[in-house]
Structure formats: C-alpha cells, structure tokens
C-alpha cells in the first residue's frame, strides 16, 4: 500500500434507531480508515448496517436514528473535521455533502425524483457547489453524462428518469454524484438494481472513473465478487459490527473470521481452493432487536466455543499489517 494521505477515519461509530419496539443498534462500533484514492469495500448480509454506516458519514441518517458514539474525521488540506460534531442541517456539512463526499444510492429508480428531468437534478448539485451559470452547469452535466457513457447526452439530459432504462438511470446517478469531483464517493450497492450485463459495465465504469479522477471509493455490497473487482481493502460487517477488515487479497486468500470464511464459501469461484460447492452459512441473521450476547455471530458459528463466545464480546485483534478481526479464536501476539 502506497502512503497516500489519510482522507477519512471512522472510529468506533455507533448509530442506533429508536422506536416503540426498542433500540435497534444498526451500527455498533465500527472503525475504518480510507486514504486518498483508495477503494474500500464494505460487505455483509442485508441488514448488517452497511447503508446506515454510509448515511452516518454524510449525516443523513433518518430522523428516528442517531449517532450515539464515535468520530468521523474528514481530513482535507491538513485540516481535520469531525463530521459527528457538525450540525446536520448546517452550512458546513451541506458543503461536504455532494461536494467532498458524494453518494450513489441503491435504487436508481427511487433515488431520482420523477418530476424533474435528470438534467435539472444534476445541474442542481453543480450549481450548489460550483460558481457557475445555468448554461455552464448544463455544459458540465452533459460532459459528465458523456463521461459515464450515457448515449446521446445532449438529448438524455432533458429526459425524465422514468423514461430511462435501469442501466441509464444508474449511469445518470453516478454522473450526478461525480459532477462536483468529490474526494470520496460512496456507492451503496451500485449494481444490485441493474441486470447482470449492466452490472459489469457499471463496475468497469466505476473503476475507470476512480482511477481517472483519483478519488477514494467506498463500495457497499453483499456481493464479494464486486469487491474482488474493485477494492484495495475490505471490511466485513455482521449485525452492526466490523467483524474483520483486511487488504482485499488477504481476505480472499486467508480469511480469519468464521463469518468471513462462511461468506466466501457461499460465493462460487471465490472460495478457498475454488470449491464448486456452494455452502451458505447455516441459520439466519438474528433479529436486530435481540442481539445475541457475547459474539454476535455465535448463534451460527461452526467454531462456537461454549461459555466464551456467548458470554464475552471478542475484542478487536490486530493480526498483521492492517488485518483486524473480532473473534475469540485469535489472540493478540
């Protein structure tokens, strides 16, 4: 890993939702760093808190949720801002949103408002963050659409989102997010809503754009193939906890946490020794309202150690350079 400067450092982040049913610990103690130009993958089954982690960074967590602890430090031009301390409606965070950190959302269908053209919605963010006229903003939007491979950008810019195909909508969404040249792009399941052939194109596009624009990338996915395609580092989440994080090649070659091992086994071609057999993790994710005591994975773990795993929360252990894991099977050396 080259020594690019640190861009974003998330430390012990916890975001909880409060409702009549109780407190839902959607994110519960997650830490990771991203350096400029680096690509981090966040993986885990649906509901483990990936999207809420992203929402926390941008401070757009729905209003029934709250960041309860942690720091999110954004380091730019030698200045460090703790995003958690900012007023979530204030000027400061609004300049960061869309400007420094932009996000591509899960559902391009629902993420665009259907009552304005995509051009309207893209120029809006450009004019919000850059000093320019309406015409210039439009020029830049067309350029950006061109760049993401939108066919006939001068025409499609005036199309309403419902008139575009899923793939085109996702391209428009990426163009919108990139239009202000953010230092960090968060892509939340950028390929789940589009079909397989488009998926490959979108991944290719993101890879090219990331390299060309030198921005850092967080790719959120439940699909490890996406991560092997795009990412330098990986963080695996389970029930709001970062159970393992490591450089991508290390995770795929030498996974430590039993959950990571299980996840890899359930993916064809990526598993250890390219085993053909698909082997999904047994059992199902417990209700987020009834988190298991001790290690959150102990209800499903094949390596479960009685009276240890279900009693004590495993601490985070550093195994090697940038390889951290939360599991009682490992001890700090």
């Amino acid at each position, binding site marked *: 890993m080259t020594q690019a400067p640190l861009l974003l450092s998330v430390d012990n982040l916890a975001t909880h939702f409060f409702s009549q049913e109780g407190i839902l610990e959607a994110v519960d103690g997650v830490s990771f760093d991203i350096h400029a130009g680096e690509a981090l993958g966040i993986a885990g089954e649906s509901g483990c808190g990936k999207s809420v982690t992203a929402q926390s960074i941008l401070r757009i967590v729905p209003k029934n949720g709250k960041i309860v602890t942690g720091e999110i430090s954004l380091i730019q031009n030698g200045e460090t801002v703790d995003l958690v301390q900012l007023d979530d409606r204030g000027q400061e965070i609004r300049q960061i949103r869309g400007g420094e950190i932009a996000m591509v959302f899960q559902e391009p269908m629902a993420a665009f*408002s*259907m*009552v304005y053209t995509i051009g309207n919605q893209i120029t809006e963010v450009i004019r919000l963050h850059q000093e320019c006229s309406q015409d210039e903003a439009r020029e830049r939007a067309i350029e950006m659409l061109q760049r993401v491979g939108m066919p006939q950008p001068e025409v499609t810019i005036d199309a309403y989102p419902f008139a575009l195909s899923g793939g085109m909508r996702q391209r428009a969404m990426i163009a919108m997010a990139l239009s202000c040249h953010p230092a960090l792009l968060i892509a939340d399941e950028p390929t789940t809503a589009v079909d397989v052939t488009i998926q490959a194109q979108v991944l290719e596009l993101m890879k090219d754009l990331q390299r060309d624009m030198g921005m850092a990338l967080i790719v959120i996915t439940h699909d490890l193939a996406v991560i092997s395609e795009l990412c330098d580092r990986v963080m695996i989440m389970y029930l709001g906890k970062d159970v393992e994080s490591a450089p991508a090649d290390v995770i795929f070659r030498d996974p430590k946490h039993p959950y990571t091992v299980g996840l890899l086994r359930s993916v064809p071609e990526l598993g250890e020794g390219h085993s053909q057999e698909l082997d999904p993790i047994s059992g199902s994710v417990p209700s987020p309202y009834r988190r298991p005591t001790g290690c959150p994975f102990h209800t499903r773990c094949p390596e479960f150690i009685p009276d240890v795993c279900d009693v004590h929360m495993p601490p985070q252990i550093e195994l090697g350079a940038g390889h951290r894991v939360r599991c009682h099977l490992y001890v700090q050396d």
Partner: protein
Amino acid sequence: MLSFILRRILLMIPTLLVVSVISFIIIEAPPGDFMDAYVDQLLQQQEAIDPAEIDSLRLRYGLDAPSYVRYFRWLGNILQGDLGRSLEWNQPVAKLITARLPWSLAISVASFIFAYALAIPIGLYSATRQYSIGDYIFTLIGFIGLATPNFLLALLILWYYFVATGNVAVGLFSEEYLVAPWSFARVIDLLKHLWLPAVVVGTAGTAGLIRVMRANLLDELERPYVMVARSKGLSEGKLLFKYPFRIAMNPVASTIGWTLPTLVNGELLASLVLGLPTIAPLFVGALLSQDMFLAGSVVMILSSLTLVGTLFSDIVLAWLDPRIRGAI
C-alpha cells in the same frame, strides 16, 4: 403539454353529452309534461281552459314529438343559450341562473382560497414537525373543524354578526352597494361580505385538506429521493419545496374539480342561513316545486362546471407530475 390539454378537452365532449342526457331525464322525470303543469297552474288560478288551445300549444312546443327528438331540440336550444322557462318564477331559466351563478362561483373561489391558504401551510408545518405540540394543536383544531356542521357555524357567525351590527341578513353587499353599479368600492364591499360564507363553506374542507396534506407529505419525506436530495447538500427548506412538497400537492390538486359540487352542499345551508342569492337555494326551490327546467338546467350547469374543474385539476396535476402528461 399542449397535446395533453387538447386530448383532455376532446375527452370532455362525450362526458358532457352524458351529463346532458341525465339532465334531460331529470327534466322529463315528473309524470305529465310542461303543459300538464301549465294546466294545473291555470286550474289553481281558476281560469278557463280550452283543451283545443292546450293541444295547439303542445303542438307548437313540440311536446308530442318522441323524446329523442325533444332531447335534440332541447340540446339545440341550450347551445343557443335558451335553457327553457321556469314556471315557478315565470322567467327564462338562463336569466335566473346567470343572476345567481356568479355569487356561487365567488363563494366557491373564496372558500377554496380560504381552505388552501390555511391547509397548505398548516399541513406543511404538521408534517415537518410531526408529533410536536403545534402538530397536536392543529390536529385538534382540525378535528373540531371537521366535526362542526356548516349550518351551526353559519348560525354562530350570524348570531355574532347580529350582535355586532344589529343586522339579521348578511347578504353579499351593504345596503348602499346593493344596486349600485360596479365600482372599486363595491368590489371591496363584496369582499368584506364574502369572507363569511367562505369561512362557513370552507371550514370542513380545510380540516380534511390539512389531513391529506400532512399524510402525503409524511409519506413523501420518507422516500429515497429525499435522502438523495439531502446527500447533494440541498438545504432542508429548498429540498422540501422542490421535491416532496410538489408531489404531496398531487392529491390535493386533484380535489380541485370536486370542490364545486361539494360546495353546493355546503353553500346551501350557508346561503339559506346567511340569506345569500346563490344557486343552491334556487336549486332546492326548483326541486320542491317540480320546476324541472330550472332543476335540470342547474344540474347541467353544475356538472359542466365540475367537468371544467376536473379539467383544471388535471392540467395542474400534469404540470406537477410529468408522468401524468403521457397517461391520457
């Protein structure tokens, strides 16, 4: 957008024809015809009746023709502005209606403005500050407004008016302007009177509108596109008006067309209690005295105006939501 409006207007023509058929059926509904009613009237006035003269009149008015012939003749007359004659008032129906329709429309428009001017900001406030004290207070007031019958409100206002001014009838003008020619002062005088029936008629609707507005907006605020707009760095206020507000207005806008017929309900009591020269009391009088040309014409005109109202609704909707433009 223009082709949408054109298509929409073309679509109105068959509906208008159906409306006219229904109106004609209403006119023809009572047993006997216009002449029988005339004969009855003469009998009541104890005047001599010449059956031959009646028959010739029947012939002259074409009352012996089959009903479809009479329908087309009637329709032809309407297109020329002739709505028939009111027996009760012994005046052309067109004249009666044109004398009163403007007041009904004025009350409609005024109560409409009253309702929306109140409901939209309150709905907006309640949705963005859900479960705040203000939200609870508005909800409570809203329910009281919904539950208060119009006539009770009218009576209360009338009583207040009597206590305050010593006048019984509210009317639409002060005495000095009653028959005066139109002038700026007369318009002001009208507006001074208009707000009363507007409040009476509009109150129940306002409460309903607040609920609709609040619920819609709460729904819309949860949508992913709102989070996306927020993630772009838009301020909360701009975001609210540009995105969810516009969508939340859809169902509100679609009620515009229905305002008129429901107003006739509301307006009736208000007009009776407040003594206003509007359509609703005329309509009820016509039904009571089986003055069918008048009744049928009122139905015809109100229905047509409702259609125009829905046209207006649809145009507003299409402007609010581009998806609708292609749908018709």
